[in-house]
């Protein structure tokens, strides 16, 4: 089995220059939860409103770690058990063995069970809200055998937790789901100065105004806003977000 370190570049939405990683409550809880889930080869879930940093948190927490092996799978739209099996086989085995879905599943179970002695395997299913009943049952089938020695993480935005809850066989297995929520005003004002230098000395009233009109506590929106504002800052040589720049950005269509 190939051992490639999971090492995606840390990219914020819209990739604004000069931004840092802010330790949101979600990120901290996710770190704690992941530690347990990986150590005990459990099933974990990270869910919440789109743009609140689930995928980002997972990538930050799992990247460049040599003590685990990460297989990252983005669930496609309208997945089937076969499509899940094929993608997983390709990621795990480096090829898709010939044969029916059943034969493929037996190969997969063997590959997943036979992990002892190696570094823990962590299989991430991103966009897990796309899973249907059959696929949820299939993931459970892969993870259930008592010898199974891999951790499975489900991450997804709007509807993900509803999908998991709808499948009792998955729901009952999830260890301490982590819910990512939009940042409240207090948390926002604490976090933003660490996120980008333009917010360090910015007027808190202005930041709350921007949040109310455009970002709604969602980090992905703040990332997009920061990228646009940074573009306007650069030619003017300004360091701090001003009302004028904020107004220009807010006037732009989303």
């Amino acid at each position, binding site marked *: 089995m190939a051992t490639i370190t999971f090492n995606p570049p840390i990219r914020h939405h819209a990739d604004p220059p000069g931004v840092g990683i802010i330790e949101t409550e979600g990120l901290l809880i996710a770190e704690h939860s992941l530690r347990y889930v990986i150590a005990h080869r459990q099933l974990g879930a990270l869910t919440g409103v789109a743009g609140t940093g689930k995928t980002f948190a997972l990538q930050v927490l799992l990247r460049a770690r040599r003590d685990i092996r990460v297989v990252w799978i983005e669930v496609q739209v309208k997945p089937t058990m076969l499509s899940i099996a094929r993608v997983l086989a390709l990621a795990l085995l480096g090829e898709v*063995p010939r*044969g*029916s879905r059943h034969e493929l*599943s037996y190969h997969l179970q063997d590959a997943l069970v036979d992990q002892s002695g190696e570094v823990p395997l962590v299989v991430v299913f991103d966009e897990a809200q796309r899973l249907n*009943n059959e696929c949820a049952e299939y993931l459970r089938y892969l993870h259930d055998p008592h010898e199974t020695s891999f951790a499975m993480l489900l991450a997804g935005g709007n509807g993900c937790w509803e999908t998991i809850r709808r499948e009792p066989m998955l729901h009952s297995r999830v260890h301490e789901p982590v819910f990512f929520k939009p940042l409240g005003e207090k948390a926002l004002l604490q976090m933003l100065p660490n996120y980008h230098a333009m917010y360090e000395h910015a007027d808190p009233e202005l930041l709350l105004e921007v949040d109310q009109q455009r970002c709604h506590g969602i980090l992905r929106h703040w990332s997009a806003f920061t990228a646009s504002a940074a573009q306007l800052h650069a030619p003017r040589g300004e360091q701090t977000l001003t009302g004028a720049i904020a107004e220009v950005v807010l006037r732009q269509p989303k």
Partner: protein
Amino acid sequence: MSTDLAPRTVLRAEREPQTLAGLLGLHDLESGVVVCHPVPPRAGGAGQLALDVLHALGKRPSAGGWPRTSGVAAHYAKVWLEAERVGDLVLVRAGLFAPAALAELASLAREAGTRTWLAFDDPKRRRAAGELLSAQAVDAVQPSGGRCGEPTPGGARARAWPTPSPWLARAAGARTFTAQEFNDIDARMYNAFKATSTYIRSQRELGYRSLQHFPGVMAVDPVPLRRHARLIGVGCALLQHGFAVEIRERRIAAEPVVLTPTRAQAAQLRRHASPASAAFHALTSLTDLDGITIRSITLDQVIETASGVWIGGYLLQGAAAAALRAQRTAQYFRGLVSSQTLFMDARIRDDVTVWGRGDIAPPITLEVKLARLSAPLDISFHQPHLEADLQTPAQETQDEAELILRLLRLTPSRAIPLARLSRPYRAAAARLTATSATSVHEGLIAASDHLRFSQFLFDPTRFMAKHIEPRPWHLQPQA
């Protein structure tokens, strides 16, 4: 075999992981309990439960011989459940499957002598399936595990039938036994004859070791008369290849070599879904038997005992015993009879992993003495070199064998003038004539029909028509 094979249904609320883990933890193939964790079917579908059972039994698609049709999968599942002596088959997530699929599984298991437990977590589905299957609703899965082995005779000693001479044993058998009994015995005799002939042709040298072991394996039979018949077949083949032979049973009962696969070896053997492949690998990798010997073993030489399967001087246990049982059952399913060979498939590969072969040879059950004669019956026969360590039979035996070969080379209508024979052969001629192996008329000696019949050179039907009062006669061997 379990006394009550009616399927059971149980409501386990498997959505709790610890519940399912508890069920999966019951899996213990060595104790006869198999827990099947099936691949989920499409919504309301039938799935492939037979394949799931094979996977639960340790079979793997990558090992070769994986069934390509659902019919073959069901057949293999039944064969392996029976061969592995599985007493209880537990299906988790049974509620995912259509009741008809569950009924098929329960029927398959029942035919294999296995009790089925169907674990549901939906009361409605449980009730529906229970009604269709006439299943018992129980509170918990309580597998009892293994089934009773079939006690069998141990090492049978050969028992001869009345015959004036060892050279006439086959002909004498035709008189002694009913047609069915004779067919039964003759099939074993012929099998040993053919197998020994193939073996001799394949050998460059015949020495003490090969001559103790091959006939010993060929003669294995739980029925004493059949064992004697097999030994006669071995002797006939050696004579026709130009060897005078004396075979005697050892007086000391030989204990078989017990072979129990390790855990890793068992897992490796169990990967094979094809019974033929599994059984061949078990024999070639665990025992000292070579490919020719293995391909000569007949179905009735796979002997079931309470502690394993006895074959060729070895007592195989665990997964190896199951592989042999499965192959035997599969061959019977194909319509073969007990006198036919265990392996009919020439495609089985010989290049298998060898686990300690040569370390432990089976016990010696026979004493074989051998001497080369002037020529074989058919000069095209390959004659292997004889090693120096062999004991030779008595001179009288050699003289008789030489004379028999000389006479058998002639057409039935021809004879040799007695005057041409040297003194020792004249004495042999007198002995053979006294036992009706040869006939002397007007100073000429010829092979009798009795002798030709005993050496597989004579059509038994013609022989019987001339020498025995008419009675129903079938040459096809009977099971």
